[in-house]
């Protein structure tokens, strides 16, 4: 074992350099390394024209006269009458511009189609407002398939020759209206949504309708604009393909993640088998091969605390996971005033709070952003660093949760991990900086970090977004296998976390130490997933927060000395180490002993 250890040590430095170089190279060609690709065109879909059964027809609610709807891979254009159905003209946005759709390519869609469709009806005359004179009504419907709602450089826009009014929905965040090719600025339009009815709204100077709930948009909307003193009324309905939770479509979106989990499991088993072979050959360790791979019967340790701060942390992590990923979906609203730096991938556009990692990974696009957006980005980044710091890592980050889960799996199976030593931790530093460089710099040399980011496999998939994976998919396997053997493996090289950590001097969450109370038992160091040694060797400073500290509180949880370690928020210590709670798991044994003694004493007094 010692020899193996020595060999490991000798190979570590070149290995670290190799990892850095390989990472650099791979990240440049990341686009060629496809892990899993979803189609980003309309193949596999069909389109039909349908006539709504309700012939009640002449309602004032005009929104349902012409609209698209989805049923798995079938898109239907719904009309009110056979006459309308045959009169409707359908267009698709394709790589060659706008194409009119025929019966043929409605049944089998061309791969050229980019996923946006529009349908128009010939003009109609009707007395809409009931003032006696007739108005001319122009009707159209538009739909976007889900993959159009990515971070795309150009939004899906049709030719305004087809229909003057157009609803444009981008990034699942902005709803704007074009009229004759120009933004419809500062006008009052009628907005009808299937979910919450009709209302009058005013567009802003960029033609954007603000404050519409995502839920309303997803339920299907229509915008009616009365131009030329109300003589010409234009109406367009809009439907975006919805990623309904727990449908077969949703499962499809989860596929790559499932594959990753499966491959990781295979990888882990392979590693275990390999290690077992090596250990078995060792003269000293061979004897313990079974125990060390935990094949024998295992028991549990009862003595240490079961509930406490760590329970809170787990709860927070799980709640954070679900609220971040599903919050926007369920509430229909997301917080877009801030962007927190966290690896909850904002390519899931239904996410409750956006993450600044996207902007950080695309710093080159910063110049294209509006000042207000840059302001929001910078201000929320700074505020997050100061107010939350790496508390984000310990308590909120979904990628952190996944790693903690794999770690707990190992704990549950009692499988031996891979404890890193001080030297190995030090070797990680260049990797950290390389990652940070890649994270911030790749966008300037033609790639971007999102292509290698493991977090992309998580949040979008769980929210039902079909996102193609490149190098990030492979990386996620490494993260899961690594996280299984070494707790928070990725966090140790995470560029985003490190970036936040660099501001640790100013952040409000802090780890404090009472150096005299500390016995240098090293428990905190053993427990620390980030391998921070100073936390136990420090003998002078009362503040032991470092750039690597993810505020997970494990050190405090495991510290047996009263008040030796504590966590504080802006000076307020809210969590302290304590021997009593550390050993609280023994309370049960104590109760048992008390019962035993009572019984014995009773027997004794009975005998007397």
């Amino acid at each position, binding site marked *: *074992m*010692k020899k193996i*250890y020595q060999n490991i040590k000798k190979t570590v430095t070149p290995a670290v350099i190799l990892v850095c170089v390989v990472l650099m190279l791979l990240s440049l060609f990341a686009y060629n390394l496809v892990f899993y690709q979803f189609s980003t065109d309309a193949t596999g879909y069909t389109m039909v024209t349908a006539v709504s059964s309700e012939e009640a027809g002449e309602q004032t609610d005009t929104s349902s006269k012409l609209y698209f709807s989805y049923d798995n891979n079938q898109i239907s254009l719904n009309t009110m009458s056979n006459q309308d159905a045959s009169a409707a003209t359908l267009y698709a946005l394709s790589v060659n511009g706008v194409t009119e759709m025929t019966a043929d390519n409605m049944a089998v869609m061309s791969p050229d189609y980019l996923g946006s469709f529009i349908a128009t009806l010939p003009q109609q005359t009707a007395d809409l407002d009931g003032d006696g004179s007739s108005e001319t009504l122009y009707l159209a419907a538009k739909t976007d398939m889900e993959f159009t709602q990515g971070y795309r450089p150009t939004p899906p826009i049709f030719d305004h020759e087809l229909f003057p009014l157009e609803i444009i929905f981008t990034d699942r965040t902005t709803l704007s209206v074009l009229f004759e090719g120009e933004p419809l600025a500062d006008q009052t339009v009628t907005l009808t949504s299937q979910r919450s009815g009709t209302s009058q709204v005013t567009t802003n100077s960029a033609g954007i309708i603000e404050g519409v709930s995502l839920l309303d948009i997803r339920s299907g909307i229509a915008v009616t604009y009365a131009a030329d003193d109300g003589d010409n009324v234009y109406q367009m309905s809009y439907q975006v393909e919805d990623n309904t939770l727990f449908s077969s479509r949703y499962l499809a979106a989860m596929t790559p993640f499932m594959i990753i989990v499966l491959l990781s499991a295979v990888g882990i088993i392979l590693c275990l088998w390999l290690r077992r072979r090596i250990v078995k050959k060792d003269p*000293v*360790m061979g*004897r*313990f091969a079974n*125990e*060390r791979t*935990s094949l*024998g*019967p*295992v*028991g*549990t*340790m*009862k*003595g*240490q605390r079961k509930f406490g701060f760590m329970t809170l942390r787990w709860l927070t992590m799980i709640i954070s996971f679900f609220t971040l990923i599903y919050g926007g979906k369920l509430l229909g609203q997301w917080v877009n005033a801030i962007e927190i730096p966290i690896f909850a991938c904002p390519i899931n556009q239904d996410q409750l709070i956006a993450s600044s990692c996207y902007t950080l990974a695309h710093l080159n696009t910063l110049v294209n952003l509006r000042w207000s957006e840059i302001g929001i980005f910078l201000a929320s980044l700074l505020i997050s660093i100061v107010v939350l710091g790496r508390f984000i890592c310990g308590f909120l980050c979904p990628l952190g949760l996944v790693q903690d889960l794999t770690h707990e799996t*190992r*704990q*549950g199976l*009692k*499988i*031996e*991990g891979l*404890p890193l*030593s*001080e*030297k190995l931790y030090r070797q990680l530093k260049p990797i950290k900086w390389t990652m940070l460089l890649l994270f911030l710099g790749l966008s300037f040399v033609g790639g971007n970090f999102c292509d290698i980011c493991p977090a992309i496999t998580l949040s979008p998939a769980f929210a039902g977004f079909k996102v193609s994976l490149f190098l990030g998919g492979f990386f996620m396997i490494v993260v899961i296998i690594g996280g299984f053997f070494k707790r928070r493996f990725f966090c140790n090289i995470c560029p985003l976390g490190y970036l936040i950590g660099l501001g640790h001097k100013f952040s409000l969450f802090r780890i404090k130490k009472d*150096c*005299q*109370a*500390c*016995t*240098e*038992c*090293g*428990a905190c160091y*053993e*427990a620390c997933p980030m391998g921070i*040694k100073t936390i*136990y*060797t420090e*003998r002078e400073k009362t503040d032991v927060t470092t750039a690597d500290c993810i505020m997970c509180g*494990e050190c405090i949880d*495991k510290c*047996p000395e009263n008040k030796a370690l504590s966590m504080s928020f802006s000076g307020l210590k809210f969590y302290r180490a304590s*021997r*009593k709670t*550390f*050993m609280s*798991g*023994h309370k049960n*044994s*104590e109760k048992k*002993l*008390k019962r035993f*003694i009572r019984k014995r004493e009773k027997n004794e007094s009975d005998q007397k």
Partner: protein
Amino acid sequence: MSLIKNKRNSQKIGLADHNGAAENKTKELTAMEQRQRQRFIDKATKVSGKYLRRLAELPGAPAAIQPFFKVLEDIYVEMKNVERAADTKTVGTYCVMVPHELIYAVGAQPVKLCSGSYTAFAIGDDLVPRDACPLIKAVMGFQAMDVMPVYQDCALMVVPITCDCKKKMAGMLKEMVPTYSLHVPTSKSDDTDMEQYVQELYQLIPELEAVTGQTISYQSLAKSIDEMGFAQYEMSKFNEYKKHVPALIKGTHAMALMNAFSYMPLAQWSQQLHLLNRELARRKKDKQFVSKDKQPRIMVTGSPIIFPNIKIPLLIEETGGILVGDETCMGERSIYDPTVVVDQSFDGLMRSLANRYTRPCTCPTFVDNDQRIYRIKQMIADHQVQGVVYHVLRGCLVYDFEYQTLEDELGKLGIPVIRVESDYNEEDIEQLRIRIEAFIELIKLKDLAERSKK
């Protein structure tokens, strides 16, 4: 050396009933040796009996401490072995670095064999160099006389290689009984030191397994760690009571309790300690204290203080001080630091043991041992100590080395320290009494001056 040779001839490994074993051996003993042995036993039991009496006579002993006295009496006066199931083998350990958890996990009973016997010391004086420390002499004395069942019945001795004396002792013991030398890292600041100890412990396991024939398993190890943890849980409750001012229990009694730990099965010890804690809780409620408000609060640290060599704690408390803390390896240190399991795998348990038995250990044989000063300072704060008695056994260099730093550090805090050197005999008792009495008077005066200032 004739005695040693004798022993080697009559060596009998394994566990025989002590009386039976003695019978076997008597056949080979000459009449003179027989007489010598009897004299030794008489003298040893007399001394131990005397100190036990003094312990009991020291006022304020809680009723629940009697079982611990009883254990000391059984071992040192009645010459019995540890109370245990008849077929349980015992494994002798020295110092504080041998994980008792491992020994319990293979189904054996550990006993701590560092000795404080004056009588055995007198014998050992002829066996080892004059400048060796008395502890070694006493151990070798017992080993040579072949009369103490706790020594004689040991199926294996595990000697950590700590100070030079222990190192040579391991060598000598190996000549007489199955002995395993456990290599303790010399320093602990580097990660590799601890890692190395993990390897050492892995190597120790097969040796222990050979003793009982039981193999260690995850379950047995987890269970013994839990049991030790429970003992430490009771211990830390006891420590809380010890912090109470005025004191709830005399320090000398507390040291007897810690000495009894060496010869008691773990579960039994924790159970008795639980009862003691219960009594202390009652005392606290009834405001039944064993010290007066103005009694100087003394702490003792330095070389090990092992029954029956408890003259120093006794002197402190007989001359008007109250012993509130001890930082010695037969005292609190041996059990104070809990095993912190951070990884639930088998290797994780082994790591946590290696970690617990090296990193927090304040033994001065480690190259870097600054933490002892901090530990002492913290104890001074916790127990509101007013003076420190620094005990140095004659020949115990490592502790003597650390005296100077401690004196400087405590000087900064304004805590008086006194260095007392002693040997395993009663000749120096009067001189010690005078010095300790003066020290306590000094603290009283200092205290008075401080109080009047306020």
